[in-house]
Structures are given as structure tokens and as C-alpha cells.
């Protein structure tokens, strides 16, 4: 078969093709030590000797369809997604930019609702939107509205969080149920409306992260499992840290309605997107106190220890299933649900 020489929707899935696209098409031509970190945000020092707090900087574009869904809309997503990318490197998010690509004909009321929802999300996250840009394109050149946000935050001196820091014996903690966002958006997709009592979990996680970092100096990895789901985040950590990760299926929080929808549609919830969840790798001696701190917060009520970091097989994620079998959990391959964020 001819080699795929065009961009396919699967290149945007967050799975393997997305990784390959970044690794082959973007990283080599732009190469520099900060880009090479390949974490959720770039972290760098502003002082010549690298002392003092460091800046975290990130950007993300939002093309979710439909623009509004149960539990949120593209505006809340655009603020929370970028806030969370900053939070996942341990940064305190401070300021965001917002750029809009608007399709001719978009009702002004839709735009206003998105802007209002961004204001509310910004207030909740304790950040400010300080700059922006607007472009309007002809009808058909965009699907209603695309939003880009970029954000900066400060990483306290001495704090090191990164996907390469997991160590054998560490506990793996998940902040709550998986798959809610992906199923909520999907259930309202044109041509696929089904009644699901599922709301998107889209939420800013910087408050939860602050509580975790206050509870323990030994939080080593933070990831928000968005596109590609929990399976993809765990695989990224296993690969970056060159360790194995062993999880227990029965410990993973999953809402009944998400489970029902996944069963019906043939999806594996491990691969369905989240927008308000994080997975953390924490030193074993601090795991219980971090868990307790998380459970006392709004977005960590259902937090659970779902597994541990093991030596073998390095780079892989293994799951003990409910019936006692074991399976390998690979990174998402192909595309599961296009344009969910």
C-alpha cells in the first residue's frame, strides 16, 4: 500500500501518529534543549545562572465539535486545558492569551457565551486573560469557532516534576473517574445523539495540584490524560522514565453511564479523553497523605491509588483485569474520537 503522505484525522488523535508527527516533523527542525523536554509545558529559567523561579510556557488549540456540550463548552475547555498543561509541570498558572478563528456567520450570542465561560473558568482558576487576537474566515473555512490559548506560569525554585522521574516502587494515583469528557462530547455529536447521563469533567486542576504539592515534596510526575486517555499518559510515563507500570482494573474509578456507553460503542475507557483528571506518580511513603489531601478537594474526591511503578517490563503498562487475567495496555493506536478538544 502507498505510504500515507497526507495528514489524516488520526494524526490528531493524541496517540501514536500524533507522537510521530511531533517527533519527526516538528522537533528535528526546531531542535533546542527546552523543546526537547517534551513535557506538557516548556520550563526555562530567565536568569543566566538558572537560579530562582522558572517560567512555564505552553499553548494549545481547541477545535471541539459541538462547541457546547454537557458540562462545558469550547471556552471552558480552552482555559482549563492550558491551565492544566501549566499545572502538570508544577507551575502556578498566571496569565493566558486567547486567539479566535471565527467562521463567517457565527451568531454573536455563541461568541458571547464562549467569552463568558472563559471569564468564569479564568476566575475559578485564579488566572487572567491578558492578550488576544481575532481572525474571521469565510464560511466553510472553519467549523464555527476555533480557539487557541497560550499560558505562562511560575515553577517554584527546586520543584522538579516531569515524566522521566518515576521510580520503581512509586505509587500511581488517579484523581477520579475516566472517560467522562470523551463520552459527554460524543453523546452530543451530530448523527450519534444518545442519552447519556454523562457530563464532561472539564475543570482547572491547578488548585488540586497545589494541594498535592503542599502535602508532599515527593510528587514526581503529573499528567492530565486528555486525548489518548489514561492508557496513553501511563505509556508516556513508562517510556520517559524507562520503568514498567502495573495497574489494577478494579481500582480505576469509572462512572456507570460512561461504562455503559463504552460497552455499547465498543470503546475501551482507558483510551477515552478526560479534561479534568490527572494521574500522579508519588513516592510510596507519601502516597496515602497525598491521596487524603486530594480527596478533600472538589476535583479529587474520587482519587484512588490505581497501581505502582515496577522495574519490568520497562516501558510497558500492564493491567490485572477484573477476572484476574493480565494484559498489556499499549498507547492509543489510530483515532478513537476526532475533535473532542
Amino acid at each position, binding site marked *: 500500500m*502507498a505510504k500515507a503522505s*497526507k495528514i489524516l484525522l488520526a494524526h490528531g488523535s493524541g496517540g501514536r501518529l500524533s507522537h*510521530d508527527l511531533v517527533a519527526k516533523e516538528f522537533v528535528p527542525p526546531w531542535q533546542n534543549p527546552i523543546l526537547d523536554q517534551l513535557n506538557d509545558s516548556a520550563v526555562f529559567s530567565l536568569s543566566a545562572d538558572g537560579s530562582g523561579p522558572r517560567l512555564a510556557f505552553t499553548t494549545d488549540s481547541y477545535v471541539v465539535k459541538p462547541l457546547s456540550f454537557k458540562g462545558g463548552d469550547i471556552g471552558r475547555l480552552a482555559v482549563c486545558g492550558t491551565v492544566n498543561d501549566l499545572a502538570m509541570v508544577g507551575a502556578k498558572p498566571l496569565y493566558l492569551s486567547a486567539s479566535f478563528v471565527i467562521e463567517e456567520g457565527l451568531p454573536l450570542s455563541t461568541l458571547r457565551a464562549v467569552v463568558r465561560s472563559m471569564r468564569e473558568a479564568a476566575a475559578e482558576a485564579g488566572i487572567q486573560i491578558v492578550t488576544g487576537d481575532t481572525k474571521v474566515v469565510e464560511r466553510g473555512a472553519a467549523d464555527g469557532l476555533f480557539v487557541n490559548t497560550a499560558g505562562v506560569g511560575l515553577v517554584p525554585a527546586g520543584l522538579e516534576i516531569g515524566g522521566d522521574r518515576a521510580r520503581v516502587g512509586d505509587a500511581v494515583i488517579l484523581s477520579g473517574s475516566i472517560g467522562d469528557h470523551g463520552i459527554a462530547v460524543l453523546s452530543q455529536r451530530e448523527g450519534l445523539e444518545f442519552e447519556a447521563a454523562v457530563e464532561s469533567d472539564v475543570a482547572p486542576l491547578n488548585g488540586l495540584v497545589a494541594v498535592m504539592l503542599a502535602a508532599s515534596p515527593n510528587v514526581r510526575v503529573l499528567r492530565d490524560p486528555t486525548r489518548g486517555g489514561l492508557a496513553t499518559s501511563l505509556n508516556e510515563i513508562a517510556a520517559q522514565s524507562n520503568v514498567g507500570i502495573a495497574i489494577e482494573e478494579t481500582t480505576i474509578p469509572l462512572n456507570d453511564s460512561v461504562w455503559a456507553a463504552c460497552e*455499547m460503542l465498543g470503546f475501551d475507557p482507558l483510551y477515552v479523553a478526560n479534561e479534568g483528571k490527572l494521574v500522579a506518580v508519588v513516592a510510596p511513603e507519601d502516597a496515602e497523605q497525598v491521596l487524603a489531601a486530594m480527596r478533600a478537594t472538589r476535583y479529587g474526591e474520587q482519587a484512588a491509588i490505581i497501581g505502582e511503578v515496577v522495574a519490568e517490563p520497562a516501558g510497558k503498562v500492564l493491567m490485572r483485569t477484573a*477476572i*484476574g*487475567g493480565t494484559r*498489556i495496555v*499499549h498507547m492509543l493506536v489510530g483515532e478513537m474520537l476526532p475533535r473532542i478538544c
Partner: protein
Amino acid sequence: MTMRYVQEFRDGAAAQGLVARIEAAASRPVNLMEVCGTHTVSVFRHGIRGLLPPPVNLLSGPGCPVCVTTNADIDKAIALAQQEGVTLATFGDMMKVPGSYQSLQQAKADGADVRVVYSPRDSVRLARDNPHRPVIFFAVGFETTAPTIAASLLEAQRLGVTNFYVFAVHKLIPPAMIALLESGEVRIDGFICPGHVSVIIGSRPYEPIAKRYGVPCVISGFEPLDVLQGIEMLLRQTAEELAEVEIQYSRGVRPEGNPLARELMYRVFEVSDAGWRGLGCIPGSGLKLRPEYRAFDAEQAFPVEPPPTKEHRGCLCGEVLRGVITPPECPLFAKACTPEKPIGPCMVSSEGTCAGWYQYGPRS
């Protein structure tokens, strides 16, 4: 649907009990074939293979409709989609299946109007909403799917939707099972028969397999406990040297099946010969539109001449579909052939055997 019903069929303690009984019953090496792709996925997803004692070997069969669709049929679907002004609708899994030269996904990227639908009724709606555009539904599937296609076609007829067409490459499961046994290529000691297909056809079409070929058949559900219990029932039959058709999936399957669905299916379709990837042409194993529904036949309405078919070099999907090899024995597996750049259809479909091994198993 109540999810509690599902949870009960994933109970760890009950699974351990069944595994112990399977271990006790597994006295000699047996090859059990799970015919259906949904079983293949369940076996992988729940880690069932690792729970079975070494004498029990599971083989995956030809029960993945996407996988058994021939290159010729995919090429024809692509040619239909490339007709000026035509929309081709199909199930998502078909998009990435490589035909002789390209996939529907690539044809779409090159400008053909190909849409993914979740139900054939959606394609009737698509036709009704776009009355000036012919909408062809590329219908792939077994006895489970065919009645819903038939119902959609009858709905289109009732609604007076005249721009709806069907390109049907439906296939029937029992003739393929018999073809496998006739070939004698692989020893099969028992069939885990498909649950959903059997909801429609019931247990009787498997009787010749048990009686004439002496191979036990157990119709199983898809939850892990269903599959384990199905295996245990087959082992009990082989131990007692019985060959019967049993229904494990009794909450879904009756011996007589679903006569209404079959009536619907045979009102619109009639049995025909069909080409299967890996198995060749099997007499009486397909469904074609009856003459009175010719107006809906995409092949009649849009005569296309696809280029000559060619097979993918080195691809062993045919051997995988016959249970002759496991995917890691194919030299292309996980190397040249991955779900992102599939060479054969068994790597494409979420129910494909190669995709199952790739997604859930060791990749080398």
C-alpha cells in the same frame, strides 16, 4: 441495558472457579476456535488466554466481517465512492481497510465523499436530507447486521427515498465454519460459536457441524465469564467424546433464533455464493438483493469497472483468518503492518485478530 448485568459477568471469584474447572477438565491438548471477532477482543481485553492451562489453545476464526471482505469488494466500494456526485456511507471500521490500491479513507482524503455512519438508518436519513445526491450504503456484516440493512432498505422504500442504494457484501457464518472443516487445514476440537449471530440464526444451523463433522459447538456470550464457561462446556464435551450444540449464552439466544429478523432478512436478500478473504468463494455463504429490490442495488445503478485486483505482498491475513497461523507468525506483523499503516484488514478492524494481538498482546 443494565450495567449490573455486565458487572456480574466480570466477577473475579467466579472466574477463578471456572478456571479451576477448566484446569481439571483439560486432560489433552485441544484447539478451540472462537469464530467471532468480538470473542477475540474479549479474550484479549480480559486477559483470558493467560488464565487457560497450556493444553487449551484458542484459535481465532473468520468472524470479523471487515477482515473477510475481499479486495475486489473494497475496490468496488471505492470505485462507487469516486462516482461524480455520489456519497458512500459505511461503518467506521471499513474506512482504513486497504483495497488493492488504496483505502476508503485515502479516497476520501483525495476528494471522494465517504461518510461514516453508526447505523444503516443514518444513511437512509442522509439520503432523505440530500435528495439530489445518491447515497450508497456499503453493507458489510454477518447475520447480525443483515436484518438491520433489510429494515433500513424497507424504511427507505416506505418513505419513498429513491436516492438510497445498497452495495451489499453480507456473509453467512455457518458455511464458513464448514468450509474450514472441509479444508482440513487445521484441527478444530470445538467451536465457540458467535453470540450475536446466533441471536438471529439460533442454534440449529450449527447442528450439521456437530453431527456430520463431530465437532462440539457452544454458543457463548461475550463477557469474560461467558467465554470461560463456553470453554468449560466445550472441554466437558470433548472429555466425554460428545459433539453437540449447546447454548451458554441463554440470556440472549433461543434455539429457534429470531424468526422475525430472519423473515426481514430473507424478504430483502437471498442466499448467494460469496468470496471470502483467505477462504475463497464459498457456495451459499453470501446474501444478495432479491430481484424485486433491484432498484436499491448500487451495482445495478452505478456500473463501475474497478482496476484489476491485486493482493498485498507478504500479507498473511488469509492464513490468520483460517487459524493456520497466529499474527506474530506473519513476517509483517508489528513491523511493516501496524494499525496506523495496516497492510491487511485483520490489522485494521477493532475486531481483527491482528489488531487484537497488537493492541493487547506482546508485539514480538
